């Protein structure tokens, strides 16, 4: 069964005052309104660590009750920093299997109220315990991977820094972004070292925020064409390949296989740039850029807003912000706005979008492909009634979503 995105919304991202349940509720109500839905059949909540960040447990039930949906079955999903995408996947499979018709997926995180070393420690819990015992933090492991990738592709510090400059320029056009000021290349390259060669302005901020999406079986303006998950060893030292993420490649293969086409169809992408080099690495891992060519695409302006393949029109994790459990959903919200032409000020022309989310240091990655369903249910052509008279076959011609489908007859009454 096809799965559609009927509505999406998100809060502003940044240092926010509201509580985490309030933030998630704000995003959730926005998505329900956009989808013209009062009450979903089910709720999936994405949050990386509400127990430690805000001291709340049983979080799916907590959010459901807070939303006034106490009797709606709810579930919390966690895959470290890709929890938002994983939650979308959980909703997707339940709708695709016909278990639920409408599912609200909402996620977020509240982190700015804790001191930075504590936040770093909590995020560091995603790392292999042995490597953590050596003092490895997320930036340290990211730096190890970055250095190996730079040696293999010849990318320079300037190339990494241009990613941050581009994303801040995009964030300046996004009223929801954490950072809405452009930055200069000089400022990025001169910022203090965090984990050599990564500097402060190559690393995404600590943010509060929430995002939500409504998925349903009934046709809507945007369809989830494919969704895939990839996995890799927890420990960095066991990985085979060091200049990129195997988990992204596996996720992309699975997503494109489900969609039935390849990366050449993608016209806009939201990639997980928790560290600036990850955007370039992920362009290659998802197949959006040929191996070793991502930096050339960046420096030639192909991934800018006005380029051939805009990457991170929202500002990415770097400028839009990274509210952990909410980020995977925030990417889908941005793509939904882009595909439905609601991204005023940073609108790009696109019919197919790709969202890429990294969990931990690439142990559980997701690739989600969204496409504009050019016929949101109107121009379907009946092809005939089944033998036993219970289903009507239809054809949805043209566009990116043209595929045959079957509808149970009583739905058409």
């Amino acid at each position, binding site marked *: 069964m096809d799965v559609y995105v009927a509505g999406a919304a998100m809060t502003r991202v940044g240092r926010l005052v509201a509580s985490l349940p309030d933030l998630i509720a704000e995003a959730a109500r926005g998505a329900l309104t956009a989808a013209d839905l009062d009450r979903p059949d089910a709720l999936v909540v994405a949050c990386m660590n509400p127990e430690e960040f805000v001291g709340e447990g049983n979080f799916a039930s907590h959010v459901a009750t807070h939303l006034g949906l106490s009797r709606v079955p709810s579930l919390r999903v966690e895959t470290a920093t890709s929890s938002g995408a994983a939650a979308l996947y959980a909703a997707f499979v339940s709708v695709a299997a016909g278990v639920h018709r409408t599912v609200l997926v909402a996620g977020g995180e509240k982190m700015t109220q804790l001191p930075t070393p504590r936040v770093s420690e909590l995020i560091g819990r995603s790392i292999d315990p042995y490597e953590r015992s*050596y003092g490895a933090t997320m930036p340290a492991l990211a730096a190890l991977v970055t250095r190996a990738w730079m040696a293999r592709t010849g990318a320079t510090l300037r190339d990494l820094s241009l990613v941050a400059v581009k994303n801040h320029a995009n964030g300046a056009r996004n009223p929801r972004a954490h950072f809405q000021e452009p930055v200069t290349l000089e400022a990025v390259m001169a910022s203090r070292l965090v984990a050599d060669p990564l500097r402060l302005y190559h690393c995404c901020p600590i943010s509060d925020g929430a995002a939500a999406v409504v998925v349903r079986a009934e046709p809507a303006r945007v369809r989830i064409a494919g969704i895939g998950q990839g996995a890799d060893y927890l420990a960095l030292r066991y990985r085979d390949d060091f200049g990129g993420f195997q988990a992204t490649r596996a996720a992309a293969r699975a997503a494109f296989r489900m969609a039935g086409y390849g990366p050449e169809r993608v016209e806009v992408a939201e990639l997980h740039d928790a560290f600036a080099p990850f955007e370039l690495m992920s362009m290659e891992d998802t197949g959006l850029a040929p191996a070793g060519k991502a930096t050339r695409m960046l420096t030639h302006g192909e991934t800018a807003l006005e380029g051939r393949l805009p990457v991170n029109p929202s500002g990415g994790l770097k400028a839009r912000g990274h509210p952990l459990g909410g980020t995977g959903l925030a990417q889908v919200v941005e793509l939904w706005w882009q595909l439905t032409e609601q991204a005023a000020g940073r609108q790009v022309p696109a019919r197919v979008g790709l969202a890429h989310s990294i969990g931990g240091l690439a142990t559980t990655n997701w690739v989600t492909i969204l496409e504009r369903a050019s016929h949101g249910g109107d121009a379907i052509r009946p092809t005939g009634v089944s033998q036993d008279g219970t289903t009507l076959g239809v054809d949805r011609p043209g566009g990116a979503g043209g595929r045959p489908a079957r509808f149970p007859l009583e739905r058409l009454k």
Partner: protein
Amino acid sequence: MRETTTPGYGEVVSFTTLHSPPTGFASPLHLALVQLDGGARFFCHGAETRGLRLGARVTIEAVDQVYYFSALSLAERAGLFWRRRSARVGQRLSAVVRSGAKRLVRRSRDGRDPPRSG
């Protein structure tokens, strides 16, 4: 699985210097991932990363079950190189020439020696 011993020499797979380590660790903190000649890969601390490059030959040793890497001196590297009996004389000489040529090409392309960290 079979237990095996392997000499503590290997190549640097990657390295970094962490300027904001977790509490309890020295700052800045030097980390490297070392691929031993015997095949295993080790996560190590080090005293410095100056002069370190990907592929550089290092030695690792365990102190209280914590592994440390250190760059080999020129004399140590030369000793290891000539001690490798399996390499033919021709291979050794061409390896020396190749390494020298690589340095010359890098210097002429970048206009200076490749950057060092630390």
